[in-house]
């Protein structure tokens, strides 16, 4: 190859790739408003995004899979937490998860927290081509496993509850919960923890499919 040919590789290669990027950028920017529900991007959401940046949340948490890997990804946070719980948590994270790896109290104002929750709610609606993927195992119970046990595992209840000696300490030990609580009571606790304790820090799971709630309830009620 001569130097002139080498130069041609350089110019053509660069030009071609640049054109591809620019054309696709034009197209992507055209599609983003729809794919991200831009009509729902209110002033409050934008303010929440700034709160998110100002407190540098992104260097601990990933969002859209980008950022620090020290804390859970928050892209779909609002798909499995209700806003009330998140607000409560952000007010004083150290109280809600008192042991293990901790999130510091950022001393957020109520306004900031409202903005953040709106922001995370909007992010939850972004079409991410189905990322993060659904785990293989969570939907298929392990051989012989009670379906309620699978839900318990998939919902991360053990981050707060001990069960057979495994799990966290923010909530009571559930090893023998069926001996002290009825099915109805447990179902109520799952759907609306505040009905039993107005200051409950336990997230409500009313968003789960009815079948999961039933499985979970009968599993827990059977722990005697």
């Amino acid at each position, binding site marked *: 190859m*001569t*130097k002139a040919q*080498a*130069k041609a*590789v*350089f110019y*053509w*290669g*660069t030009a*071609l*790739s640049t054109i*591809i*990027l620019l054309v*696709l950028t034009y*197209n*992507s920017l055209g*599609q*983003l408003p729809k*794919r*991200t529900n831009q009509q729902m991007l209110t002033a409050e*959401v*934008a303010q929440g*995004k*700034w709160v*998110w*940046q*100002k407190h*540098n*949340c*992104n*260097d*601990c948490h*990933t*969002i*859209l*899979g*980008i950022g*620090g*890997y*020290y*804390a*859970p*990804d928050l892209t779909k946070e609002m798909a499995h937490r209700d806003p009330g719980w998140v607000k409560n948590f952000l007010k004083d994270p150290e109280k809600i998860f008192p042991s293990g*790896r*901790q999130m*510091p109290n950022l001393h957020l104002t109520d306004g900031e927290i409202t903005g953040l929750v709106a922001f995370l709610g909007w*992010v939850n609606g*972004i*079409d991410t*081509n189905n*990322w993060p993927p659904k*785990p*293989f*195992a*969570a939907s298929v119970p392990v051989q012989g496993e009670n379906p309620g046990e699978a839900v318990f*595992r998939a*919902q*991360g209840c*053990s*981050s707060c509850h001990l069960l057979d000696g495994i799990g966290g300490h923010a909530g009571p030990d559930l090893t023998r919960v069926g001996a002290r609580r009825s099915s109805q009571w447990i179902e109520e606790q799952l759907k609306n923890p505040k009905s039993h304790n107005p200051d409950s820090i336990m997230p409500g799971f009313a968003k789960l499919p009815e079948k999961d709630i039933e499985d979970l309830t009968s599993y827990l009620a059977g722990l005697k």
Partner: protein
Amino acid sequence: MKYESQKVAYKYFLFATLLFALQVVFGLLTGAKYVWNFDPLIHILPFNTSRAIHINLLVVWLLMGFMGGAYYLVPEEAETEIYSPWLANFQLYLFAAIGVAAIAGYIAGWSWGMPFLEQPTILKAGIVVVALLFLYNIFMTMLKTRKWTTIQGVLLGGLVLLAVMFLFGVFFMKNLATQYYFWWWVIHLWVEGAWELVTAAIMAFVLLKLTGVDRERIEKWLYIEVGLVLFTGIAGIGHHYYWIGTPGYWLWVGGIFSALEPAPILLMVADTLKDVRDRKAGITNRIALYWAVGCAVMHFFGAGVWGFAQTLPQINKWTHGTQVTASHGHFAFFGAYAMLNLTMVYFALPQIKGLKEFSQRLGFKAFWTMNFFMIMMVLSLTVAGVVQVYFQRIMGLDYLTTQGYMRLWYAAFGASGLGFAAGCLMYVVDFFRLGKSTAKS
């Protein structure tokens, strides 16, 4: 060294060396938070702050190294003194002052909050000024003699691209997806575009001088390598557009183009080895040669192999945003860019100090220690990442429970980090030893 003003590079290397050491200290502090759950510094230096400082120091010392490298290289290529050595010094101090302000700001809780680009907007404006002063000085030097060698052209092209891309990370956008779309124009088009050009140019220069091979050949390969880097790398940005709200066609575009990215890097390895085999000069500065060859090889494994392993959407879907990513980040940044700067330092420093011969023992120790422990760090993080993908993404355990299963590998990572820090310290000591010595022979 042929021109007096090339000496300004020394101060750049000095600052870069000190910031490198500080980067490693903050790496250890950040890593410790993974190893132990209890964090005594949580209210003074929480994880996000120390991570921001760690990665900002990384970028700043690498940029200072590039600038020093450019100030050393350009006079020799252009065959003239630097246009304004005073400006070169001033620009360094300004950059350093902005760096100090940024770090102090992070500790005080002043942040812009996008990873790598946490600098508050006023400081970003200052960085733009620094870049303009630098480019002006370099360009005016080249203009003095108008000897447009390919090496100079590629270097200038890389530096201009680097500065322009930064602008896409300065503005606040309401839409997070759009913000991240352009964030990648900075991060990806830096490390897989602009910085690769700077690296290719500096590497070509060092090999040319060390091995004495034919300039025609070096420059011809430079065009091909850089052409392929940009061809694969620019559209290869699509490997970051799989899951951030962007349309599905990026899975194809990103997958195909980025899968080709290792090709030019492999070409650089082959080319480097060929230059070394065909050398015309006896090489006395063996340590510089080791860094150069080591850089080519580690660049290939860190960027080419570790990057390739997670670049196809079918795999990236599972590994995206896990410690697998962090293992690649460490490997690639160290192999490609930290080692490039260390190559340039070991090549240029003895010449700046007029040393014909110097003891290379400590330099070699630092070389092997850093490389060995970086590989151990990377392997530990890779295993941690695979454990994470398995338990969290495949089995569906929750995030913190999974982190518990990864602690052993975090501990291995931390221990390897201590080893790396020891190697880094050896390098710092060696730098000062060389820097203090003056020509005797």
